[in-house]
């Protein structure tokens, strides 16, 4: 029943996030013909920004490239990180500021289990948030006379979820440190923003960026999966989750 409680607590975040992502994925596919013709009139502003935009335009010239760039490396990536941060916040430390911690802690459940069930329920929600709108892309693509591979979709979704686990774990960890909900959200978003800025403007850093692992940049360009990046992300996520468990177990309420 602990999962049920967490589901009730986060369901509106889930449904709103899902509705927005589905709307974005539909819009992304259905506006492709318009974007394609707009890109033909692209004028290079020059400089570093020009270089970046040129690359974007080149990538978007194929439908595969357009979907990868607009969805897996932008809309889904940023939307999912934001939702991972929002779904990760909460838990027993936040409850102590809301006044419900004593009821929760009076239940015959270990703190370890409370946190684990919460994390698992959130992980399932996040998996669905990445999967459902992405699986609609091959379907929407038929409406504009294009096709998109289901297998590729699943690979990119898995990369988003496994590579992005670190953002979810960070949100959980911050929620065991701060009792208010805003600090973990602000820090989580700030980390994602800094990483994306660094990834865009410092090309030498891009191959090592967790955002590149999540978007499947190497898979798109070379067909190789970023095994090392995934392993590092999962190890970091595991370490942060373990630290969260230790903090919650030792804390007085």
């Amino acid at each position, binding site marked *: 029943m602990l999962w049920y409680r967490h589901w*009730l607590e986060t369901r509106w975040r889930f449904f709103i996030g899902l509705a927005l992502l589905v709307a974005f994925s539909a819009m992304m596919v259905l506006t492709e013909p318009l974007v394609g013709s707009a890109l033909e009139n692209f004028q290079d502003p020059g400089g570093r920004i020009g270089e970046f935009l040129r690359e974007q335009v080149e990538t978007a010239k194929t439908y595969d490239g357009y979907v990868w760039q607009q969805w897996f490396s932008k809309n889904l990536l940023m939307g999912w990180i934001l939702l991972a941060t929002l779904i990760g916040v909460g838990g027993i430390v936040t409850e102590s500021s809301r006044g*419900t911690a*004593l009821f929760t*802690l009076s239940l*015959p459940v270990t703190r370890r289990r409370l946190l684990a069930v919460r994390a698992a329920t959130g992980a399932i929600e996040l998996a669905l948030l990445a999967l459902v709108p992405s699986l609609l892309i091959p379907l929407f693509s038929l409406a504009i006379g294009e096709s998109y591979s289901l297998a590729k979709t699943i690979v990119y979704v898995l990369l988003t979820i496994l590579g992005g686990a670190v953002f979810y774990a960070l949100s959980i960890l911050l929620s065991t440190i701060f009792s208010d909900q805003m600090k973990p959200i602000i820090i989580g978003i700030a980390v994602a923003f800094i990483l994306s800025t660094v990834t865009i403007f410092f090309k030498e850093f891009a191959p090592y960026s967790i955002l590149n692992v999540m978007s499947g940049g190497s898979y798109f360009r070379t067909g190789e999966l970023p095994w090392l990046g995934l392993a590092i992300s999962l190890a970091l996520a595991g370490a942060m989750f373990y630290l969260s468990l230790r903090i919650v177990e030792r804390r007085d309420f």
Partner: protein
Amino acid sequence: MSEPVIKTVGLKKSYKAVEAVCGLDLSVPRGSVYGFLGRNGAGKTTTIKMLLGMVAPDAGAGRVLGYAIEKRSDSLEIRRRTGFVSEDKGLYDYMTVGQMVEFTRPLFPAWRRERESQLLKSFDLPPARKVKQLSKGMRTKLALLLALARGSELLILDEPTEGLDPAAIEEVLQILVRLVAQEEVTIFFSSHQIAEVEQIADHILIINRGRAVVAGALDDVKENYRRINLTFDGSAPAPSFEIAGIERIQKDGRQMSLLVSRNLDEIIDQARALRAQTVDVVPVTLKEIFLETVRSDE
């Protein structure tokens, strides 16, 4: 005599420089209604949190229902067998009354469905209403339902009647008394309502600044505590009693008043030796005992 349901020895807890509980010894007999009294910040809630494993004691030891409060695995068993109402009555705002019940029920193997239905009805709790839409009194009733329906052998209740109207308070007190009489449940409850404690408790503990200042069977406490009023011809002399048991001395002109907890006869003899014009011994109420003991410790 059976083992106490709650037993603590030298329990201590500090928060930074503040000593919340300082060496508390507690012994709650099985089947008793144990009133736990103290001013705000006296250490009541911290004690309750330690008993339920929410806060780790800095020193001392404790057992609840035979399980050690310091051990995590034991603490889990304590919570499985204990009904608890917290001071703030915090429940999940995003759930309805019915969802709160459905969520809590499967976590307690001894859950009493008939009691759940009966309390839902008698407390007039609407199952479809969201917790956030409940009044303070209704929240208290829901918190009580969730504690009482657990079918626990021990109830730990922190201000269980807070926010209730007089009729509801009476109803709750009657339910608690019935539970003790019919099912040998032990109740350990804190309250600021001394009249309530006097109405249902058979044992009390008054805590002040983390220390127990009065403890024992309520009848014994009321029997042992007496006020001795002395009137002198002239100004009352400086008090010079050397007998243990004098809790508080007040002097006002020709009058002197002693609050005595034991050795009554010896103290009376010594009072007479002071050449008091009159010596009156009067019983004291629990409220007076509470006020005098928490004041005399200041």
